């Protein structure tokens, strides 16, 4: 390999291998960091303000730490954490692309961060314009009619979409008879969990030998008690559902609706649109496709866009144009109601808006092109070292398998993952989708360079050529080594106080 790879992180420094003490161990009685404004207010005692029956006897113990030690503690914790800003993160279905810093700055402007969500419309014209523009732009990207920006994450978007499905069937007088929602066996776990919370029963449809929905099997599932189907396209194998038009008409023929799980929208930006495929409801993960950083687990944003016939049911209030260049709030006629305390994860929405502004229509298409190019290149590069159960052109990700390695030398998907950490990369998603044995789901994303892909491929090939005994020892270079996860569950210690 000639060039150094920007996405390989083996040079990250570590000062040692000790456990970081907790805030509670770093505390000393009476030590403090906080300061407060000088207010000149009367200094009433607590008992004069609140009845003694309500007052705590002792202050709540939090921590007693200096600001200097506090900063050192969290800075050391940050050094024990892998991140996109440190190196490549090929976690399948998670779209861990680079998060442009201009979006961070956009979302930290005081004119956006200091605004109270209940302020009157005359004081939030900028926010309303931003939200209306984002709503309309997301609809053009997905080929839909109208959207809600309230859902704060993908799963929240799913449940919102299912409640819209329920409201639609109710309006058709079929609220009681539509009882089932179909999901493929390759679906994300949030899909079936959301279906249950939406008050529906799950019917699982199998995948065919090509890794796509088995259309004949789907037709056998379809009847007038079906409320709809939830699909991810491209699916979790990274394969485009080529029969989507036939699937759409079959589901629509029995009066069902099509729900698009937008987890993999990154693959099709500017190439094709869920609305054109026949979907009625679409959720987007702005923290995947539109570069909102994942924050170690959140916050994200999961807007839901719908076709015209479902628009009257969208959550309210919706940001809207008033017609005179001004903006206001609107409650759709048959709204299912609020799905968030306020207006959704507004600052995450502002980040996504700025990302779309920067990329523009052509730039978003290039995102999809380079994501798909990277994934296909990496699949080709790895096909001699790993099994590729569905070895045909993929979209933004592909699923490899360690099943052959396991048979031949005892190397499992988890071992490959732990070894890859030693090689300076985050691991792929492992053991998902469930329909692939020893699955390694790899999504390089469009922001990794050829040099990084080459280094990652070399690492994975080296790992496949290694021994199981060596791999079982991995990872050896990380802040901690393999964890006793069973003990974590068996002897539950969910707080510092629980261990005392």
């Amino acid at each position, binding site marked *: 390999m000639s060039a150094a790879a920007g996405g390989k992180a083996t040079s990250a420094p570590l000062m040692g291998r000790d456990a970081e003490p907790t805030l509670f161990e770093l505390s000393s009685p009476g030590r403090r960091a906080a300061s407060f404004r000088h207010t000149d*207010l009367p200094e009433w005692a607590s008992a004069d303000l609140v009845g003694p029956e309500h007052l705590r006897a002792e202050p709540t113990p939090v921590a007693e730490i200096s600001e200097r030690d506090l900063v050192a503690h969290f*800075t050391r914790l940050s050094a024990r954490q892998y991140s996109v800003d440190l190196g490549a993160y090929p976690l399948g279905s998670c779209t861990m692309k680079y998060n442009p810093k201009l979006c961070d700055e956009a979302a930290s402007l005081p004119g956006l961060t200091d605004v109270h969500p209940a302020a009157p419309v*005359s004081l939030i014209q900028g926010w309303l314009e931003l939200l209306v523009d984002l709503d309309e732009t997301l609809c053009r990207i997905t080929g839909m009619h109208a959207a809600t920006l309230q859902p704060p994450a993908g799963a929240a978007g799913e449940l919102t979409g299912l409640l819209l499905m329920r409201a639609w069937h109710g309006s058709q007088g079929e609220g009681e008879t539509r009882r089932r929602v179909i999901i493929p066996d390759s679906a994300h*776990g949030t899909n079936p969990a959301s279906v249950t919370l939406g008050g529906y029963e799950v019917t699982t449809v199998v995948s065919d030998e090509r890794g796509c929905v088995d259309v004949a099997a789907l037709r056998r599932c379809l009847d007038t008690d079906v409320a709809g189907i939830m699909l991810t396209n491209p699916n979790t194998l990274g394969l485009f559902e080529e029969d989507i038009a036939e699937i759409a008409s079959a589901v629509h023929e029995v009066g069902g609706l099509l729900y698009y799980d937008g987890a993999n929208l990154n693959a099709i930006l500017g190439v094709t649109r869920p609305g054109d495929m026949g979907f009625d409801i679409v959720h987007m993960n702005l923290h995947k496709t539109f570069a909102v950083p994942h*924050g170690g687990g959140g916050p994200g944003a999961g807007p839901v866009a719908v076709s015209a016939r479902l628009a009257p049911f969208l959550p309210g209030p919706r940001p809207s144009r008033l017609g005179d260049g001004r903006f206001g709030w609107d409650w759709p006629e048959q709204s299912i109601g609020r*799905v968030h305390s306020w207006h959704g994860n*507004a600052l995450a929405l502002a980040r996504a808006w700025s990302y779309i502004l920067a990329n523009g229509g*052509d730039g978003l298409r290039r995102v999809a092109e380079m994501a798909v190019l990277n994934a296909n*290149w990496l699949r080709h590069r790895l096909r001699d070292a790993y099994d590729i159960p569905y070895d045909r052109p993929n979209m933004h990700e592909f699923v490899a398998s360690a099943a052959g390695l396991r048979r031949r030398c005892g190397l499992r998907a988890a071992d490959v993952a732990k070894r890859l950490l030693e090689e300076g990369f985050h691991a792929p998603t492992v053991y998902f989708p469930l329909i692939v044995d020893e699955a390694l789901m790899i999504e390089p994303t469009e922001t990794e360079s050829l040099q990084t892909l080459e280094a990652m491929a070399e690492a994975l090939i080296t790992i496949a050529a290694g021994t199981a005994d060596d791999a079982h020892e991995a990872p050896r270079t990380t802040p901690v080594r393999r964890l006793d996860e069973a003990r974590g569950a068996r002897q539950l210690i969910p707080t510092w106080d629980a261990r005392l």
Partner: protein
Amino acid sequence: MSDFTPHTDAEVAEMLAAIGLSSVEELFSAVPEALRLAGGLDVAAGLSEADVGERVAEVAGANRPTGRQLVCFAGGGAYEHDVPAVVRRVAFRSEFVTAYTPYQPEVAQGVLQALFEYQTVVCRLFGMDVANASLYDGASACVEAVNLAVAATGRPTVWVSQGVNPRWRSVLSTFAAGTGHHLVDVGLADGVTAWPADHETSAPPAALVVQYPNYLGCIEDLAAAAGAAHRRGALLVVAADPVATGLLRSPGEHGADVVVGEGQPFGTPLSFGGPYLGMFACTRDLVRRLPGRLVGETVDVDGRRAYVTTLRTREQDIRREKASSNVCTNQTLIAVACIVHLAWLGTAGLREMALRCARGTRYTRDAVLAIDGVEPVASAPVLREFAVRLPVPAEVVVERMADEGFLAGIPLGGEYLGDSPDGDSLLVAVTERRTRAEIDAYVTALAKVLS
């Protein structure tokens, strides 16, 4: 335009050749021709970083028609507290910001330990045994608490105090359409919940849900609520203000089974309502029904202390349609900001913050009630928020007060006002940020607007 893809033309050609293709278009051969988008996206051309900055600044500026930030007396679930510099400088380090969910704990000890510390302090605030790693916001935490209570008791009905934030109740009702849970409103008497007498009711509910202090700012009698719940074999769900718990007895001390809260006051600016932080905590015997992620302490193969997400079999990726919740992505970064802010406040600082809110609220309430024509909505004790009845519509007052430089509060809907006209009451919040000079100027302006 901006381009965050690193590929040169030569590299694209080299990569295409390696996979046996001659054009980028061929990458999408699996997409049927009829579904291909002709003519590209109808989205404006991309902008440079500097031009994006100008556009965002323009929109941000439109939120300040007077050119200055208003002095904030609005609350209702979103409060303007101090956010110390350490939160912005440390919690928002890019290692925390750009990490994924800690699926590989060996390289995620930073986020995992911060969440473990967060869970510990949430439990201390609320007087509970177990807290999860966060939910979306206060409303979603409340929804999950109701779902837990129904699952734990097998009863479909939940009593919800009208003192619970009306937007949260709206969210509860939205999601009840899917679960089929039956929500029963329980009204207020002089600002606090009037639970039905024990002999008045037939079918016992799964839970009683009460807010502490409630939406009108009044401190509820949690001991009475706990009695009313437990005598019926129901759970007590408390939606607690985590700032108030710096001064007030914890909900756990009063017998709460599940405590939820909106964590925004710790480390998160107003942000037009999000991202905020759903806090969720419960007693140990309910832990198997806990929604969302839970971090626990364990050891690695060398015996070193380490942290890991635990009791994973509750979660959607394993349990699928039988999971305790569908939540996956949560609000981890906001939870990290919360624990950084709480650690900065410390034991003494948290109490002082709550006390300063209570002092400012007392001072403001006394002065506002001294204005001619202003009446209290309730006489129950308050902590950092109170409601008053005005002689003119509250919406008009808020608009006029904005011209005076103040966000005066939140107009209350008719449901809290008995037989008086809708919309003439105002909810006013006072945090530790408000000085005597600001409050005096606010009261003077309010008196002027009302006259």
